[in-house]
């Protein structure tokens, strides 16, 4: 795999990232979709409730909706075949780190594991190509003091730093700029993963920035609390990553997005540490510097610790679901919910394509009772209610709170749904809908084995534009794909995943079979760019929660205007004049190697 002469290491910690995660795909090594000997799709491992189950409808769905042919495989290269460029050497930094007792390694595989996020580009590069530039060195701070110390060393040895949390970025935020000549240090926050304290009076919790979502939640749960922040990537993404990208969790209706949850943080920059002197619910003390750090995507410094709100665990958590005759009705339903402000913890509306895809993921069930019930209810919906199978769509929701609170919420929602021709679909279907959330990233890897390129992207949009945006973007994706020579059916699907007073978050899935194309990835790029242009023309934003990274930089200027970009640049040059934090996300800085000026 590598032609590296010498591996330099110091006290390398055993890390989940290197031990149990895939090097070329999503999630745990032992968990993936595969086609069994009967030609059916199953899911391996034991970590998920679909593990070990057979999904008899999935292969036919793939065949029908993406033109997948099991005979045509596009297997990933092996890690041994993967070419990893040698590191840019910088003897000085090795010595300094050793002196300061900091763990580090320049082993090729360890560097590779921290060289990317999870865009389709990252995956294609790993599976079939190479990554042009990867970090030269990985360091593991154990404390804020270590972070400060690494920063000093990097500055004096002329190194660049890219912090990494969970590595789940989907904006090319972690990619090392190709033209960066300095030695690039990947600062892995994995060892800074402790809860520091829990304050029961004020219901806050202080934690180190490297803590992973599922660990934070598990430990809070054990003490009777929840932080309520639940992005789909919660298994791997970190507190620091959430703050850096302005993440959003599916239960934000009840608990808020990360910016609502954040009370306080410590931020280490080349100019020193930023730390507000009080931990208060709100402050009027000029512009809020916290808001500058939120969404800074690792360009200004390192988040080391943060205080966030916590909540007592809800008495009940309950799922719910509805079916609607059309997507339009569903959107109207959501609009009304937002107006009345009766949104439960989570709400999702999936379009017909995704509804069907969800059905395809249903597991084989030997219980005859189950299948009878589901076919009966199917009959009720289509025959009695007159819904058309290729129009209807589904809403799933999560209620959390006190018993009576949840009952009341459920009652009001049921009542409202009826007004928009919605039919309650039961708790099981709701639960099932959310299960899909965790499967979907694994599903992409399955598709990639058969030539499918797939990605998700999202936006936020005012209410009056939700429907046209969804329709236009889906239509555009199909049109562009056809124009660019895609020969098989194209998957373009969306869901509304968040509601706000003034608008919603829309999330798209897009995939196509690249079979027969020589430049599938280029075509993919063109389509995604056209789709984002259309999103923006339809009143949508550059991103609701995935962030900008390098993938969406081209829309920053038109999003903010020249003056605001100037301000962002001024902040950057004030706090990091030597561009130590050189991941080149968000904006181009004059004088930096990747600057186009």
């Amino acid at each position, binding site marked *: 795999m590598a032609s590296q002469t010498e591996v330099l290491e110091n006290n390398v910690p055993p890390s989940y990232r290197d031990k149990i995660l895939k090097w070329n795909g999503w999630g745990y090594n032992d968990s993936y979709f595969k086609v069994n000997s009967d030609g059916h799709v199953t899911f391996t491992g034991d970590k998920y409730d679909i593990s070990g189950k057979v999904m008899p409808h999935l292969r036919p769905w793939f065949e029908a909706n993406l033109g997948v042919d099991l005979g045509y495989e596009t297997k990933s290269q092996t890690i041994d075949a993967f070419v990893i460029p040698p590191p840019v050497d910088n003897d000085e930094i090795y010595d300094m780190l050793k002196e300061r007792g900091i763990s580090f390694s320049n082993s090729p595989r360890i560097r590779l594991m921290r060289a990317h996020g999870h865009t389709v580009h990252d995956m294609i590069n790993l599976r079939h190509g190479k990554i042009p530039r990867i970090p030269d060195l990985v360091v593991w701070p154990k404390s804020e003091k270590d972070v400060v110390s690494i920063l000093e060393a990097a500055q004096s040895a002329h190194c660049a730093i890219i912090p990494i949390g969970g590595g789940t970025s989907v904006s090319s935020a972690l990619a090392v700029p190709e033209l960066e000549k300095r030695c690039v240090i990947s600062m892995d926050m994995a060892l800074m993963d402790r809860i520091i304290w829990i304050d029961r009076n004020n219901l806050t919790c202080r934690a180190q920035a490297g803590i992973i979502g599922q660990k934070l939640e598990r430990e809070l749960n054990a003490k009777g609390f929840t932080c309520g922040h639940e992005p789909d990537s919660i298994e791997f993404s970190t507190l620091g990553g959430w703050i850096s990208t302005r993440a959003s969790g599916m239960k934000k209706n009840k608990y808020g997005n990360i910016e609502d949850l954040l009370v306080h943080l410590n931020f280490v920059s080349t100019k020193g540490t930023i730390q507000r002197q009080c931990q208060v619910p709100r402050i009027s003390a000029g512009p809020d510097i916290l808001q500058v750090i939120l969404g800074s995507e690792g360009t200004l410094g390192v988040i080391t610790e943060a205080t966030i709100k916590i909540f007592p665990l809800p008495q009940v958590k309950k799922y719910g679901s509805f079916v609607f005759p*059309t997507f339009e009705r569903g959107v109207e339903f959501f609009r009304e919910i937002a107006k009345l402000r009766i949104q439960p913890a989570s709400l999702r509306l999936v379009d017909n394509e995704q509804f069907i895809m969800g059905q395809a993921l249903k597991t084989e069930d030997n219980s005859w009772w189950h299948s009878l019930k589901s076919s009966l209810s199917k009959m009720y919906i289509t025959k009695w209610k007159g819904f058309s199978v290729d129009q209807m769509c589904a809403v799933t929701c999560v209620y959390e709170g006190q018993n009576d609170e949840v009952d009341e919420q459920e009652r009001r929602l049921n009542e409202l749904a009826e007004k928009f021709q919605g039919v309650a679909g039961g708790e099981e279907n709701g639960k099932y809908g959310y299960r899909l959330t965790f499967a979907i990233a694994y599903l992409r890897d399955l598709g990639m084995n058969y030539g499918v390129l797939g990605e998700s992207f999202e936006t936020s949009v005012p209410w009056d*534009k939700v429907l046209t945006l969804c*329709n*236009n973007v889906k239509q555009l994706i199909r049109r562009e794909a056809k124009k660019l020579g895609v020969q098989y059916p194209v998957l373009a699907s969306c869901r509304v995943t968040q509601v706000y007073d003034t608008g919603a978050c829309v999330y798209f899935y897009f995939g196509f079979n690249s079979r027969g194309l020589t430049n599938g990835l280029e075509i993919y790029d063109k389509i995604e760019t056209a789709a984002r242009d*259309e999103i*923006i023309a339809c*009143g949508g934003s550059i991103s609701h929660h995935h962030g900008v990274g390098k993938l969406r930089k081209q829309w920053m200027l038109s999003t903010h205007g020249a003056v605001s970009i100037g301000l962002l640049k001024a902040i950057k040059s004030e706090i990091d004049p030597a561009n130590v934090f050189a991941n080149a996300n968000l904006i181009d800085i004059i004088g930096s190697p990747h600057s186009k000026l």
Partner: protein
Amino acid sequence: MPNREVLYPQYVDWLSKLDDAGGPLKWITKQKHFPEHSGPNAARYWKQINEAVFRSERVQLAIEEEVIRRKCQRVEVEKEAHAILDKMGHKYSIWNVKGFGYVVTKVLRRLFRGIYVNEPAMKEILKLSGQYPVIFMPSHKTYMDFILISLICYEYDIELPAIAAGEDFAKMAFMGEVLRRSGAFFMRRSFGKDYLYWAIFSEYVQQHLVHNDRTIEFFVEGGRSRTGKSVSPKYGLIQAVLEPFLKGDVLDIILVPVAMNYDKILEEMLYAYELLGFPKPKETTSALLKARNVLNRDYGKCFVTFGKPISARDYFNGRIYRPLHNLDKTLTMEEKSEIRRLAHFIVKEQNANSILTVWPLACNLFESIDLSEVDFTIKLLKMPIDKETGRKNEGLNKEVMGLAVTRIAIDNYANSMLPFCAYEAIIAFLMSSRIVKNDELEKGFLFVLSLLNREIISVPGEEKNEFQKAMHRMRAANMISGKGDEVSKIDEWAWIAKLERLIRPYMKHFLIVINCLSGDNEKLAKLESTSKAISYVQQQMILLYEKDYSLLDLTYLSSDPIKNAIQTLIDRKILKNYQPHPPHPPQPQQPHPPHPQQHAYLQQVQQQVLQQVQHLKIPLSEKTEISRQTGNICNSSRACSNSSSRVCSNSIHIL
């Protein structure tokens, strides 16, 4: 001759398809499968559409503002809104179409010898119409256009268009209702500052688009061209139609220019009278079908050519930045000027796809047409003028007008020739005026084109290109050759002279209009409207003609070119016009009470055009023969060659 590209040249005679299907009854009762729609809904029933338009935010807001402005009860305005909608909306249903369609096809079968359609284009349009809103934009010379497009759509399983028609059609006792039930909706010819009307109208049109309920058809020229050639396009409706795309409400809009070409036109005589200033007869059903034995006549062939569909998305790509509308809903100046450009482009496409039948050629280029063989002209000549309409055009000499009617009817056919070689004709004209230097030719070309911009519709910004292309074509056709900077005629077949005669009358006419309007500012100021000004010019012309009939050609009496000339003089700020501005879509944010109607009057302010014409050294006096002087009238005029120079030198003198 220039080689025009005719797209989709495979024509099919629809009448023979009709016969193959077993005649009108069998044809119309065939099962139809219109394509599924891409919109979120299936095509809506007209009542649903009207209801949705009424409930729309735009209309509700307009009602609210109207209530405040008028200080009246809401129900009152709501009632008015419903009334507007009832008057405007179509009542399309496929059953109606089948009913009327039977009668109409039977009639068509008798009127025409052939109705030719370029079939491959229809197949492409069919595919597109399921995905995107499709807008048919036919050239418009006759009522027949409405009917043919719908029938052809029916033939090819394309959802029948909702047709934007003038409100006067709605008043036709029977046909109005037939049109309405076959999908026509009716708009006022002008809606000034009536915000409520504008809100309802644009919502109505745009809902059809956004829901892709139906295809849409409208005429970018505004109304029927009375002169056989394109009318300068109108921008209001095309703007309303494109707005949903510009604001991101639809992914794309497909515009289909359609060229409609007829051997003969139903309204040929009516137009000639109208152009002489007789008031437009009321659109009545009997006027349409009964009059002049329409049914017993042979209208020859007609060609319906569907042009290459224009995707608004592709057309505007890189020209406009749509996200601006996330903050401001009103269209920008740039967008408006791009839309105007597109409107001109559509007209250009219509012309490029036109089929030139022999008749206009005959009216124009071939010297000796024996008019006595052409039956309709004879009839026209015999028709007494004051029987035509109740009112008389006061002050116009009856006999002169009688002669003029014939001339104009012929001339209108000749006109349809113009778009095919207008640019070459301008060059020929300039060369006949001894302009031979390349750059002077170009300058002169641009100048003449700008004077005749209402006669020759070109795409703004493309003028220099057109010059180059025309030069190229003329070189290729061996009409001219060039050495260095100079261009010279080869012109064995006297093509240059023939071409030249297409443009000369327009230039001369222009000068005569200036002549008629010059001098007496007080008199001008008394003219209350453009139409008054037109008939003033006509009167002046008749005075000239009576003095010496060789001074001007009778076709000059046609009101259309006079109107165009006046409009051009106003645009160029040579005449001043105090008419209130033409209606443009008002902004609902800032409602103003309508202005009291201002008195319009013309005033001469500048003379620069004439100076420029002089500067071009156009020797209008030199040529004696004027192209349209064929037939009886021209024979007698040949003698007096010098007198026509008087008019021109005269006019220069006056100015």
